[in-house]
C-alpha cells in the first residue's frame, strides 16, 4: 500500500479500478479523460513499475495506490487484485475497470457525463454495461509518431477495423466471445481461434458477491454477462477504445515477452513480436478513421439501445 485515500469516497461516487506496470507516460491523459467524464476516485494496483508511475499516482488527490511484486500471471492477469479491491471498496458503487490504455465511449458521451449513464442504468434496473474492446492504430509504422505525456492517444492511433468481428456464445458463463479486428487480421490470419477476446463488461454496479472471472471479459454470477439481447433487439452498449498500438508498444511487447506473464505462454505477444519486426503497419485501405461515438453507433459497434 502506497497511498490510501479511500476515506474520501462518497456513497454515490463512480470508481475506476485499474492495474498497471510502467505506464507513467499514459497516466496524465488517462486521469484527465475519466475525471472529465465524472469519475470521482481511482484505485490502482501498481505491479512493480520502475518508471515512477506509482509515485506519480500517489501524489494525486483522487487516487489510491497499492503496489505489488507478485506476478501478473499468478494473480490471474490482475483479476484477483482487483476483485479484492472491488469487494472492499466497490460495494454499492458503479465501478469501471479499465487499463491505462482503454478509453470508454458510450452513447451520448459527448453531452452526458458518466453519472447520467449510471443513473439511467439504475432506473432501468441494469447492473452491467458492455463495452467491447476496439483496437485503435496509427496509419504507417507504429513508431513513426512518438506519444508525449498528456496527449490524446487518439490523435495518433485514430484508425480501427469497422466490421470484421466474430461472435460466439460461451454457454458456461453465458457471455459472448468476441474476436476480430486488426489483431486477428494481422497477427492471426492463419490461426483465428487464437486471436484475443474483445468482449468486455467494464462497468458494473458492484456488489461484494460479484467477481470477474477472466480479466473483465466475464463475471459471476452469470446473469451479469447477459448484456446482449437474444430476441432481435439491441441493448445499450459502449466501446473501449484500446490505444495499445503506439510507439511505446514495441518495447512493451518485448518486455512482456521476457516476463512471460501473459495468457497462454504469451502466444499473443510472440505473434506481435514476429509480425511487427517485419511490417509494423496495421492500417489497410478499408480502415476507418475515428470521429465520435455516433460513428461507432452507425457502424453497429455499439448501440444506444433504448436510451434516447
Amino acid at each position, binding site marked *: 500500500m502506497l497511498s490510501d485515500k479511500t476515506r474520501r469516497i462518497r456513497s454515490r461516487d463512480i470508481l475506476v479500478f485499474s492495474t498497471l506496470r510502467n505506464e507513467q507516460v499514459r497516466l496524465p491523459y488517462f486521469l484527465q479523460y475519466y475525471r472529465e467524464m465524472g469519475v470521482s476516485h481511482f484505485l490502482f494496483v501498481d505491479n512493480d513499475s520502475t518508471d515512477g508511475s506509482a509515485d506519480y499516482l500517489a501524489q494525486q488527490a483522487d487516487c489510491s495506490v497499492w503496489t505489488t511484486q507478485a506476478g501478473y500471471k499468478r494473480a490471474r492477469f490482475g483479476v484477483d487484485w482487483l476483485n479484492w479491491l472491488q469487494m472492499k471498496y466497490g460495494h454499492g458503487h458503479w465501478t469501471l475497470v479499465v487499463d491505462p490504455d482503454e478509453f470508454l465511449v458510450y452513447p*451520448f458521451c459527448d*453531452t*452526458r*457525463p458518466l*453519472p*447520467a449513464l449510471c*443513473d*439511467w442504468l439504475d*432506473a*432501468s434496473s441494469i447492473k452491467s454495461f*458492455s*463495452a*467491447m474492446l476496439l483496437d485503435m492504430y496509427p496509419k504507417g509504422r507504429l513508431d513513426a509518431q512518438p506519444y508525449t505525456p498528456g496527449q490524446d492517444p487518439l490523435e495518433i492511433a485514430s484508425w480501427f*477495423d*469497422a*466490421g*470484421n*468481428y*466474430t*461472435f*460466439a*456464445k460461451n454457454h458456461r458463463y453465458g457471455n*459472448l466471445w*468476441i474476436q476480430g479486428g*486488426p489483431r*486477428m*487480421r494481422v497477427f*492471426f*490470419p*492463419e*490461426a*483465428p*481461434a487464437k486471436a484475443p477476446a474483445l*468482449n468486455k463488461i467494464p462497468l458494473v454496479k458492484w456488489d461484494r458477491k460479484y467477481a470477474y472471472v477472466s480479466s473483465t471479459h466475464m463475471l459471476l454470477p452469470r446473469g451479469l454477462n447477459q*448484456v*446482449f*439481447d*437474444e*430476441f*432481435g*433487439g*439491441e*441493448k*445499450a*452498449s459502449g466501446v473501449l477504445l484500446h490505444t495499445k498500438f503506439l510507439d511505446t508498444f514495441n518495447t512493451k511487447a518485448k518486455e512482456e515477452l521476457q516476463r512471460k506473464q501473459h495468457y497462454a505462454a504469451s502466444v499473443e505477444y510472440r505473434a506481435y513480436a514476429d509480425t511487427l519486426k517485419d511490417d509494423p503497419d496495421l492500417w*489497410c*485501405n*478499408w*480502415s*476507418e478513421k475515428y470521429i465520435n461515438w455516433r460513428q461507432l453507433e452507425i457502424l*453497429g*459497434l*455499439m*448501440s*444506444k*439501445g*433504448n*436510451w*434516447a
Partner: protein
Amino acid sequence: MTAGVGIIMLVHTALNRAEQVARHWAAAGCPVVIHADRNVSAKTYGAFRKALSDVENVRFVQRHRCEWGTWGIVAATQEASERMLADFPDVRHVYLASGSCLPLRPVQELIEYLADRPRTDFIESATTADVPWTVGGLDAERFTLRFPFSWKKHRVLFDGYVKLQRRLRMRRRIPNGIVPHMGSQWWCLTRQTLSAILNDPDREAYDRYFKRVWIPDESYFQSLARLYATNIESRSLTLSKFDFQGKPHIFYDDHLQLLHRSDCFVARKIWPHADKLYRVLLSAPNGEQRRTEPNPGKIDRVFSKAVQRRTRGRTGLYMQSRYPRDGWENGLTADKYSVFQGFAELFEDFDHWLQRATGTRVHGHLFAPEEVQFADHQRYMAGALSDSPAARDYRPRDFLTNLLWNTRGERQCFQFGPRDNQALIWDMAKDPNAQISVISGAWALPLFRSNRDFPDIRADAAELQRIESRFLDALHSPFAKARIRVWTLSEFVESPMEPLQLVIDEIGAKTPRRLAEAPTMCDLKGFGHFLQNLKNQGMHPYLTGDFPIDPTGGRIPPKPGKKPYLVRK
C-alpha cells in the same frame, strides 16, 4: 394575485431541483402545493421546507409513502388537491406535476391557454380494452383482481396472488358500475371536476375499491373524471414518454432543441443534473407569447425509434449487445445479395460482364477453399474484412453477415459452387435477402477442360454432383425463402439470354434495360462426348440435364457486337 392555475407537486428526490421549479411556478403567480414522499428524511425535508419558507403561495401537506403503483400516490394527490381548492379560491385549473417536471414554455402561456379553455379537463383517459399500455400482462384484470402485494418488492407474492385469484375465479365488484379508465398520471383538472370527485358521497366506496386496484394512480382520477367532467380532452399536457418496460424516458441537456420544438407546456422526467435545461428553461421568458398547440410528434418519433431499436434492432447486425438466437434475427442479413452457381464456369469473364450489366459489386468465389476471391482481387473488403480463408472458415456465417452489413446499400454478388465451403447453404436458402441462381451440372465444365486422368475426373465429378445435389435439396426444401432459380446446364445452354435477363432485371439496376452485350460462353465442342464418357464409366451426371452428343445442336454461339435474342415477358 393568483393566476387561476394551481400546481400540485409530488416530490421524492432531487429536492433542490423541486425547489427551483416551485419558485418558478410561484413567481408566475401560480400557487403551489407540495407533497413530499415520507421516505424523504426528516432532516432533508425540513431543509427543503425552510428553503421555500420565503415564498408566499407555497403549501406543504401531510406526507404519505409513495411507492410506485400503490395507493399512496393517490392519497397524496387527494390531500394536496383538497388543500389547493381550500386555500386558493381563485384557482380554476389544478395541474398535477412531479418534482422532476420542468415547464418548457413560459408559465404565462400555460395560464392563458387554460384561461381560454375554462371548462376543459385535460386528462388522458381510455378504457383498458382499447389501449395496449400494460406492464406485467395485466389489463382488464387490473380492475377485477386485488393487489395487496408490492410488485417491486414482493414480486413472487404478487404473481402468486394473481394466479390464485385466477384459479379461484375471484372477481371484484366495481362500485356503482363505473367504467375503469386509465391514462397518464399527470393531469390538469378544473376545480369543478376535481371538487366533484373529492366530495362525492360515494368517495369512500371508490377509495376502498381503488386501494386494491393495480396502479391506482393511473386509473383513479382517470375513471372518476368520466363521471363529472363536461369536456374531457383525453391527453396530458405533460410530455412524458415511456420506454418499452413502462419506465419514463429521461431528458438531458442535448434534448433542449427537441423539447423547445415540441411546444409542450411541461416535460418529465428531467435528469436532475441537466444543468443547461434547468438554466435555460427556468430563465425569464423573452420574446412574444406563442399560442401554439403542443406538438409532441417529433419527440414521439425519437423515442419510438428508441423502443424500436431496443425491441427489433437493426436487421442483419450482430454485435456485442445484439446477438439473436436462431430464428429471432428479424432477417438474417442486412441487405439483398445474389449468389451465382455455375455461371462463372459457363461464361468466360462472367464477373466483369455482370459488373457492367448491373453496376453491383461482383466477387469471385468468396468461399473457395484456398482463397477469398474479393472483387478486384482486393486483400481486404469493406469493414477491413480479411481475405484469409482460415478466418472466414472460423465463423463463416459471421463472414457473410459482416460483408452484407458493411456494404449495406451496395448490392453484393458472388460466385458459389460445389468446390466451395458449403457451411452456409441452409442459411442462404432460408434468407429472403438472397437471390440464388444455379446452373446445375456446370461444375462438369472445368473437369471437361482439365487435362487430368479420367479416373480422377470421374471421382471428382461424382463428389461435386453429390455436393451440388445437397445444395439443391436445401433450395427445394419448404424452409427455403430465397429467390431461387435452377436450370440444368443443357436447359440453360439452349437459350441463355432469357434467364440472364430475368436475373439481372430482378437485381434491379437503376435503369432497367435490355442487355446490350452477352457474356461469352465457353467452347462446348466435345462436351457431349465428355459427359457420355462419364456415363459409360457408370457415373451419371444427371444434374447437367440431357446434353446431345453433337454439341452444335444445342449451342448458340456468341456473336460479338450483335444484339442477343431475347424473349421478354
